[in-house]
Structures are given as structure tokens and as C-alpha cells.
């Protein structure tokens, strides 16, 4: 078994919605009202091994990006633990140079690059500042990195707006690679790209993973991409992980009703004439999530129990956990 590189335990993040210090004050003392709280990520636990790729999949607004930012150390956690190679994140993030080991690739290739900086500065800035490369050699260093992501050497002196979306995403990947990370978080890294360009970027990520043995957390709403790229997959619904399993197992035999419905909605070549079954109902507001199991208003297998009890993650097979009260290990294939 591989070494564990990252571990999250009961990680949560809530946002106070539309609050200001003054409003908090009046709400608390005058209206006797609790400020509205959005639980974007709710008690998520997961692990990532060295060199492994973990996929996180879910609908829009299920907290994937918030989770990604907490793992990257950009957002603080409201509660729960994060550990990098066994070390707690608080002390890990304080050592800036070590904290570079966790890097992130962003979704929007337009806004993820500073329009006022040249590509050479975007890619080389952090490496120079943290002393990974002396300032005198930074140009060669950046050219090497750009070559790794398939960009020509003359990109160094150009501005982001002079590149296409795919090239810009390559710059974003080069920026992350320039500080020699051990763990890369890709937050919807290909979602904003054309399908043909998506394939190029995915191949690039695969090449990088093969060459450098990076551990990756790949966040996407695209099941096809996840299936292609990931060793294990976590399925999220309204801030909670509902199922986590090896990719092959999850796609072959999903156990949680939500996962099953998600996979049923996935287009298949063999199902040309089939009508897709959309998941019934709207995704509930995360401001006011349903009681008990978050999925119960849309679940075909709902029972009274589901309204009251919050399902915990249970192992139904080694390495396969889910959070459903009704699907028992023995009755896996309903």
C-alpha cells in the first residue's frame, strides 16, 4: 500500500451569508436571529495516497470547489482536520516553502492568469521568491517548464490575452509545476475548454503524472473525464461525500441511489434512442438543506428513517464506502 500524502477528517466549511459586522450585531441583539449560514462542505473525510489520483464529482453547488480550496490551503476550514504527510495544515502552511508542495490548477483560464503580467513572470515569480531558482537563471527555468507543458519558448515575453484558452490552461499548469509540487488539485481544470482541447489538457496531465508521480485531486462534474483519469472517485451531494470507491468499482456497481442516478444520466454510445432520466426535483438550496439525508427529497428509495437520521459513511466493501441508510452491504445490487 502506498504512503498517505493527504488526509481530511470531518472537514467543514460554512459561510455566513450576506453578513456584515453591523448586520451581525443587529441580528444578534435586536432581531434575535441567527445569521444565515451556508454549509458548503459538511464533514468531509477523505485520503489521498502518493501518486494516486482522486476524482471528486458532483453537481454544481455541491461544494467541490470549496473543498478544493480548503485542500489547497487557500480557504481556512471552519472545523475538521487536514494533514499533509501526517502534519497538521496549520503548521504546514506556515512554512511557506513546504506549503508549495500543494498546488492548484484553476477552472477559468481567463481569470486565473493575471492580465498585467507576462507569462515568464506568472510562471517564474513564486519559484524566484521562494528561492527555488536564482533570479539569474529563472528564464531558462521557465522555458524548461513551458516546454514540459508544450508551450514554445517565446511565450515567456507574452501576455495571457495573446493565448488561446487551451494554451492559457497550459500556462496555469506550468505555474503550478514551477514550484515542484507533490500534490496537484485540478478544480474543473478542463470544464471551460472545447472538447478537443480538453483531451489535450487531460493527456498533458496524464503525462505529467506519469513523469513526476504527482498525487492529484481532480474535481469535475464530467463523469467521462473522471473515469478516464482517476484511480478512486468521491461523489459529493450538497456538501457531503455520499460515496467513495475505486473508479472501476464505482462505475461498474454504484451503490448510493444518487450515484446510480448520476451514472444513468451519463450519455452512452449504446443508448442512442434512450431518453435520459433526469434526477427528479431541483437540487435543494444549500442555505436550507433537507433534514436527515440531504438526498431524501429526490430519492426513489426514501423511507421515514431518511427524514430524521443523518447517514454516516459506511464501508460496504473494502475501499468502498457510501452514506445511505437503506442500501445494506448484502443487498448491494438492488
Amino acid at each position: 500500500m502506498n504512503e498517505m500524502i493527504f488526509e481530511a477528517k470531518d472537514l467543514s466549511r460554512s459561510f455566513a451569508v450576506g453578513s456584515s459586522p453591523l448586520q451581525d450585531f443587529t441580528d444578534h441583539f435586536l432581531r434575535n436571529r441567527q445569521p444565515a449560514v451556508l454549509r458548503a462542505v459538511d464533514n468531509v473525510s477523505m485520503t489521498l495516497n502518493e501518486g494516486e489520483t482522486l476524482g471528486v464529482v458532483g453537481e454544481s453547488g455541491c461544494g467541490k470547489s470549496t473543498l478544493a480550496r480548503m485542500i489547497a490551503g487557500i480557504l481556512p476550514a471552519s472545523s475538521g482536520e487536514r494533514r499533509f504527510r501526517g502534519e497538521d495544515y496549520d503548521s504546514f502552511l506556515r512554512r511557506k516553502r513546504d506549503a508549495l508542495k500543494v498546488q492548484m490548477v484553476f477552472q477559468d483560464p481567463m481569470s486565473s492568469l493575471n492580465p498585467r503580467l507576462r507569462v515568464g513572470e506568472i510562471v517564474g515569480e513564486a519559484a524566484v521568491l521562494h528561492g527555488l531558482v536564482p533570479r539569474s537563471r529563472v528564464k531558462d527555468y521557465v522555458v524548461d517548464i513551458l516546454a514540459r507543458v508544450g508551450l514554445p519558448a517565446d511565450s515567456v515575453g507574452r501576455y495571457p490575452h495573446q493565448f488561446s484558452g487551451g494554451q492559457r490552461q497550459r500556462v496555469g499548469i506550468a505555474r503550478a509545476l514551477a514550484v515542484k509540487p507533490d500534490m496537484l488539485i485540478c478544480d474543473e481544470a478542463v470544464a471551460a475548454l472545447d472538447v478537443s482541447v480538453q483531451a489535450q489538457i487531460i493527456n498533458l496531465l496524464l503525462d505529467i503524472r506519469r513523469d513526476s508521480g504527482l498525487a492529484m485531486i481532480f474535481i469535475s462534474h464530467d463523469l467521462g473525464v473522471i473515469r478516464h483519469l482517476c484511480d478512486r472517485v468521491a461523489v459529493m451531494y450538497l456538501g457531503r461525500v455520499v460515496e467513495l470507491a475505486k473508479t472501476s468499482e464505482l462505475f461498474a456497481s454504484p451503490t448510493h441511489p444518487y450515484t446510480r442516478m448520476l451514472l444513468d444520466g451519463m450519455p452512452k454510445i449504446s443508448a442512442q434512442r434512450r431518453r435520459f432520466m433526469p434526477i427528479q426535483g431541483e437540487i435543494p438550496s444549500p442555505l436550507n438543506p433537507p433534514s436527515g439525508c440531504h438526498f431524501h427529497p429526490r430519492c426513489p428509495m426514501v423511507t421515514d428513517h431518511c427524514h430524521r437520521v443523518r447517514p454516516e459513511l459506511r464501508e460496504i466493501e473494502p475501499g468502498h464506502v457510501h452514506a445511505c441508510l437503506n442500501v445494506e452491504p448484502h443487498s448491494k445490487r438492488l
Partner: protein
Amino acid sequence: MSIASFQDFARRFAESRSAVISLTVSLVFVFCAIFAPLLAPTDPYDLTHLQLSDALKPTGSKRMLPGEEVRVNIRVNNGAITVLPASPTKTRLSLAASSCGPNCLTVSVEPTAARLGSLQVRNLPNGATIEGAKKHPIQPWWTIDNPESSEVRITSATSLPASFTLLAIAKSLDQETDFVFRLGTDNFGRDMLSAILYGIRISVVVGLVAAGAAMVLGTALGLFAAWQRGVTDAIIMRAVDFMLGLPALLIGLAILAILGNGVSKVVLAIVIVQWSYYARTARSFAMSELGKEYVEAARCLRLSPVRIMLRHVLPNCMPQIIVLFTLNIAAAISMESSLSFLGVGLPLTRPSLGMLIASGYEFIFSQKYWISIYPGVVLLVMIVAMNLLGDRLRDLNNPRLDR
């Protein structure tokens, strides 16, 4: 900004003719401000060269040299002649005396071109007379009838005493010089053209320094508020609301009433008034920039907050702040002029445009329009040019107006 994008920006800027004109006018004013000592015919700060005889002269009049009175004692002692100045020592006019033969003495006025108002020689010895002069009925005072000639001859039928002393008094008329007051003079006899050029200098310096200092202070506070959020943000922004809620001129008046006048105090007053505009703009644009992914990327690269704000966020807010800066220079200039007009701005000895307008205000109904009108026109043109320039920059920065 790359060269290509700058060229594109310049081309789009030049599409508006009024913007090009206002840029040119602004540059001319800056040129005037820098080279005022070379362009100005006189130094309006040099109070020793002011003379009240020049006060309130209309446009195009010439500088007059006032008349002088010179008194000298001419002592003759056994044929030796000495001239002893009796009163004011430093004058353009001077008197000399020489012998023109036995019993004959010449008194001459220098320079010979000086136009004399009167010439009198007193205490002539008995028997001596002056050609073309009348004697006082009682005193031995001889007044020359026609003082145009610069020389008088004292002759005597009898021989003059061995030693005697004469007192010669010459008065010159006011004299016109070649110096022309192109825009007239103010009530202190200052050349308005020079005063306006130096006034532009003060206005431009006050405008640039005050707006610049307000920009630095306000932008720093705005960025700080945007980064800190929460209570710090609330405190700074309430201070901004407070400042924006009070009339700017009233705050300026109050500050200067406490501090007294002077260029640095006017600048301070304007900075206190204007920082809030920059703080509000910088905060709002920094907030929107902070929401973008490149800032998250910078945080993920573990860059320091100061570096993220100054190197990543600030350059992306700069276009809007520069627009505000251009508009606020005009506001700062007009505020300085308003404060000077109200009498709390700059000292009387270093007049700004507002001060010149104020000093002409009391004469405008006595048809001495030039003291107020010319600096007023200059101020108007300067502020309009700056505003048009700022408007154009703002339009170029607004993508919605971009065709």
C-alpha cells in the same frame, strides 16, 4: 502595458478631438508651470520691485519710473569744486558742477536725457545770477524757467567770493519705460502676466501634489480595507462615507482656519478631503479583483499579502485610479483657488490664480476687469481641459462605451 496595446490606447484616445485638445492644453499648462521663471517678464514674488505708481494699470500700459528729487551741496573753495550729495544717495539722477572760466560756474544734470520737472539753485553769493532763471522775491533762490536744458550757468559781474556753498535741487518727471504690462497690473502694481504664470505654477503643483498624495493614501487604505474585510473594512468605509457626506470646501475651510495658510497646509487640506474618493474606488475594484482566480493562484503560491496586493491586485485597479486622479487634479486646483479666494489659502505675497481673482474682485465694478478676468479665464480653461481629459480616460476604461 505592452507597446502595441499602448499604441492602440493612443489611437482610441485620439478619436476624440476634444480629448486631444485638452491634452495639449494641459501639457501647455504644465510647460508654463515648469518654465514660469523663464517665461514671466517679472518676478511677482520680488516685492522690492513693486511700486504703487504701477497699481491698477490697464492692459498694454507701460511701466513708469517715478520722478526723483536730488539735492546736492556744491562747495567752492579757492577754485576747487566739490559736490556733496545732501539727500537720497541712490538715485538715477545726479548733479555735477564744473568751472567755466573766471566768475563762472556750470551745474549740469545727469543723465542728460532725464526730463526735469524743476531745477533750483539756492544760496547764490551776492551779485551772482543765472541766465534764464528767476530769483525768489526774498530768498536768494533761483528757479530755472525752462528745466528742459540739463545745464545751468552761474555767472557774476563781480568776482565771486573765495569760498561759498550752493544748494542745487533737481526734480525729474515720471518717466515711461519700454516695459509693457501685457495684461495690466493688480492693486499692488504686479504684472498680471507674470502673476498668472506663477499662479499656474502654484495651481499645477498644488493640484499634482495634493491629488497624488491623496491617491497614494486613499489607494493604500482602500486596498487595506479590501484585504482585511470585516471590522477594519467597515471602519475605513464609514470614515469614507463620513468624509463624502461633508461638503469638501467646508472641511478645507475648517482645516485651514485651524492650521493657518501656506502651500503645504492647502495640500494637506485637499488630501484630507480627497483621499476618500480613492479609498472607495480602490476598495471596490480591489474587491472584484480579489474574487478572481489569479489571486487565489497567488495565495496558493504562498506569496505574501503585501506582494499580492501591490503586484497583482493594484496594477489591475490602476486604470480606474488614474482616471480618478486626472479628474481630481482639476478638483484640487479649483479647491485651492476657492480656498485662496475665500482668503484662507495661500499668503498674499505668493498669489495663486484664486487669490488673483479674489484681489481683483473688489475692483471689477470700477471697470478694472483685468485683475479678475484673466486669471479666471486661465483657471477655467485649465479645469475644463483637465476634466475633459479625465472624462476621455474614463470612457476609454469603460468597456460598455467601447465600440
